[in-house]
C-alpha cells in the first residue's frame, strides 16, 4: 500500500518515524500519569561525562578558553554601588570548530548516529546547531541534511539565517529551506522517513548531555584562575538545552552553590509562526519566543520527551532588549577586542547588569559566545531591521517595542535586566501538564515539583488554584 504522505498522514506516523530515527524507545522511561524517569533516560541513553569529554576531544570540540573581561567589569563598576560590581568572565565557545557551543551537542549526536550505523543525520534548525551538525557530520564522515525556516512569503530571509545556510553548505550539507510555519516538522518527518537518517535533534539525552562538558569545564577553569567556583553563570536561553546541560555539568563537578541564570531577548508580542512578523525580529534565537514556551512545556520539541528541562535548574530568569544586546556586542568588540555574536551576547548584556548587583569579589560567567560574519553581525542585522521599517535609535531600552523599535541605550547605565516571575512560569508548566491528564496522583505532584524546580506544596497550591 502507498504511504499516506498528506500532512495528517505523516504527522500520524510521527512516533514510529521518531523511534526509527532516534533508536530510543522512550516508552521505557514513561511512568504512570504525567511522570517519566528523567535521570534514567539521561543515564541509559546518554554518555558519562568522561565519555563525552573523550568524544568531544577526538573531534576538536570543547576546551575553549575562559577570558576575564576586565574593561567591561571596570565599566560595570562605574554604575554599581560602592563595593559592588562582580568580575565578569566569558567562556569563548566561538572557538569550537563550527563557531558555537552547539558543536558540543552535535559532536555527541553525530557520534551516536555513526556508532549505531546511520548513514546520515538530519536536524531541523535555522541556527548555529545546523552548522554544528554539518561540521561534525563532515568530520565524522556522515551525510547531513539541515531543514531551516528561512523566508517569509515574499522570499525575504533574515541575513543571519541565510548565513547559516551558507555555513551548512560550506561543510557539505544539503540545506532544505522553507517559508515560515510550524509545519517544518512535517517536511522534517518526511525527510527522516525517506532517508532513514538519524534525527540529530537538539533535545535528545546525548545532545543535552553534550553541554554538560561546558558547565564542567568552565567551573574547572574559573577555579584554576581564581581559586573558586563562580557565584553566578548566565546562560542565553532559548530551547533550554544550553542551560540544562550547563547546570548539570556544574552539579557534576560539585559547583552546587553556583546560581544559574537564564537570559533571553525580550520579543514579547511577536508571534513566532507569523509570516508578517517573521522579519520584524532581529534575533532568530536566544529570545523569549522560544524561551518561554520551552520552559513552560519542554515536551513541545521534536522528540517524545525532551532532555532539556530548564526549570529544573534555573534559579532566575531575566530578559534584556534587542538594543541592549546589540550595544553590548559592540562593547565587547570595542573594549575587549572580541568580535562575537550577536545572539550569544544575550547573556553578556544580562551579566553586565547582574554584575552590578553582586559584590566586587564575586564572579559572574557568561557561558558562551558565537562566531560572527557577513549576515550574522550587528551591521547587517540592524541594516535589515531598518529596511523592514524598524525604528532604531538611542534612548532608554526599556521603551523598546519588539517589532517596532530597537532602542540602543543612550548610556550604559540604562542596561538593566528585567526579572521574569519564575512562579508564574512554573504555574504555566503545571497548567500545561494538567491539561494532558484527567486526574493527578501523588507521584504526579512529586514529578511536577521536580520538573518545575519547586516543591510539592507549591504544586498542590497551584493545582488547587486551577480548580
Amino acid at each position, binding site marked *: 500500500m502507498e504511504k499516506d504522505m498528506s500532512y495528517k498522514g505523516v504527522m500520524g506516523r510521527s512516533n514510529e518515524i521518531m523511534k526509527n530515527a532516534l533508536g530510543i524507545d522512550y516508552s521505557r522511561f514513561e511512568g504512570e500519569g504525567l511522570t517519566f524517569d528523567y535521570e534514567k533516560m539521561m543515564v541509559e541513553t546518554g554518555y558519562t561525562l568522561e565519555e563525552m569529554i573523550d568524544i568531544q576531544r577526538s573531534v576538536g570540540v570543547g576546551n575553549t578558553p575562559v577570558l576575564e573581561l576586565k574593561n567591561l567589569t571596570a565599566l560595570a563598576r562605574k554604575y554599581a554601588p560602592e563595593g559592588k560590581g562582580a568580575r565578569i568572565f566569558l567562556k569563548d565557545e566561538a572557538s569550537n570548530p563550527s563557531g558555537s557551543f552547539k558543536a558540543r551537542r552535535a559532536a555527541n549526536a553525530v557520534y551516536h548516529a555513526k556508532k549505531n550505523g546511520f548513514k546520515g543525520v538530519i536536524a531541523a534548525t535555522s541556527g548555529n546547531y545546523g552548522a554544528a551538525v554539518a561540521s561534525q557530520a563532515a568530520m565524522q564522515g556522515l551525510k547531513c541534511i539541515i531543514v531551516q525556516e528561512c523566508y517569509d512569503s515574499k522570499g525575504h530571509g533574515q541575513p543571519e539565517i541565510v548565513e547559516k545556510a551558507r555555513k551548512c553548505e560550506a561543510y557539505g550539507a544539503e540545506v*532544505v529551506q522553507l517559508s515560515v510555519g510550524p509545519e517544518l516538522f512535517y517536511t522534517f518527518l518526511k525527510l527522516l522517513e525517506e532517508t532513514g537518517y538519524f534525527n540529530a535533534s537538539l533535545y535528545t539525552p546525548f545532545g543535552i548531555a553534550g553541554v554538560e562538558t561546558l558547565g564542567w569545564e568552565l567551573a574547572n577553569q574559573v577555579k584554576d584562575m581564581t581559586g573558586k567556583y563562580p557565584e553566578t553563570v548566565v546562560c542565553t536561553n532559548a530551547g533550554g538545552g544550553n542551560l540544562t546541560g550547563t547546570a548539570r555539568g556544574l552539579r557534576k563537578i560539585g559547583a552546587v552553590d553556583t546560581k544559574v541564570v537564564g537570559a533571553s531577548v525580550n520579543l514579547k508580542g511577536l508571534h513566532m509562526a507569523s509570516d508578517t512578523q517573521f522579519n520584524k525580529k532581529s534575533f532568530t534565537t536566544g529570545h523569549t519566543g522560544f524561551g518561554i514556551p520551552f520552559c513552560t512545556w519542554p515536551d513541545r520539541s521534536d522528540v517524545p520527551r525532551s532532555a532539556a528541562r530548564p526549570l529544573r535548574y534555573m534559579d532566575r530568569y531575566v530578559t534584556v532588549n534587542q538594543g541592549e544586546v546589540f550595544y553590548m556586542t559592540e562593547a565587547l568588540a570595542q573594549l575587549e577586542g572580541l568580535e562575537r555574536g550577536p545572539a550569544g551576547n544575550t547573556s553578556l548584556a544580562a551579566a553586565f547588569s547582574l554584575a552590578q548587583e553582586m559584590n566586587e569579589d564575586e564572579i559572574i560567567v557568561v557561558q558562551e559566545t558565537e562566531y560572527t560574519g557577513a549576515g550574522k553581525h550587528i551591521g547587517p542585522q540592524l541594516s535589515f531591521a531598518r529596511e523592514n521599517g524598524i525604528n532604531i535609535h538611542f534612548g532608554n531600552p526599556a521603551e523598546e517595542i519588539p517589532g517596532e523599535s530597537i532602542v540602543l541605550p543612550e548610556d550604559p547605565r540604562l542596561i538593566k535586566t528585567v526579572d521574569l516571575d519564575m512562579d508564574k512560569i512554573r504555574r504555566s508548566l503545571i497548567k500545561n501538564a494538567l491539561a494532558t491528564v484527567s486526574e493527578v496522583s501523588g507521584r504526579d505532584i512529586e514529578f511536577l515539583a521536580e520538573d518545575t524546580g519547586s516543591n510539592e506544596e507549591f504544586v498542590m497550591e497551584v493545582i488547587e488554584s486551577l480548580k
Partner: protein
Amino acid sequence: MLARKGDWVKIYNIVLTSEERAPQVPEDTSKVPLEMWVKGFITEDGKVGERVEVETVTGRRVAGELVEVEPCYDHSFGKNIPEILEIGKQLRGILFGGDC
C-alpha cells in the same frame, strides 16, 4: 535562463497550499502556502520556470520548478549604521577619558 545537465541550480516547491496548512498557524500565515527551496545538480537540461529534477549533495532526487541557475549568496555586512560608530566612541570616552 537555461541550465545544462549537471549545473548547480535551485528548485522550488509548494509543500502545503494555504488550504492544507496546519490548523494552529496564525491567520496571516494560513493565507500563504508553505514553500520549499532545495539546491542540487540538474539531471537534464532545463529552463527557469520548468519542472526539473535535481540530485542534491546527499544524493536525493528531488523534482520542482527551476527558479535559479548557479545560485549564490550575496548576504553582506549591510549598510553603514551610524549608531554603531557612536557606541565605540562613547564607550572609549567613558572608560579611557578620550585618550584612546
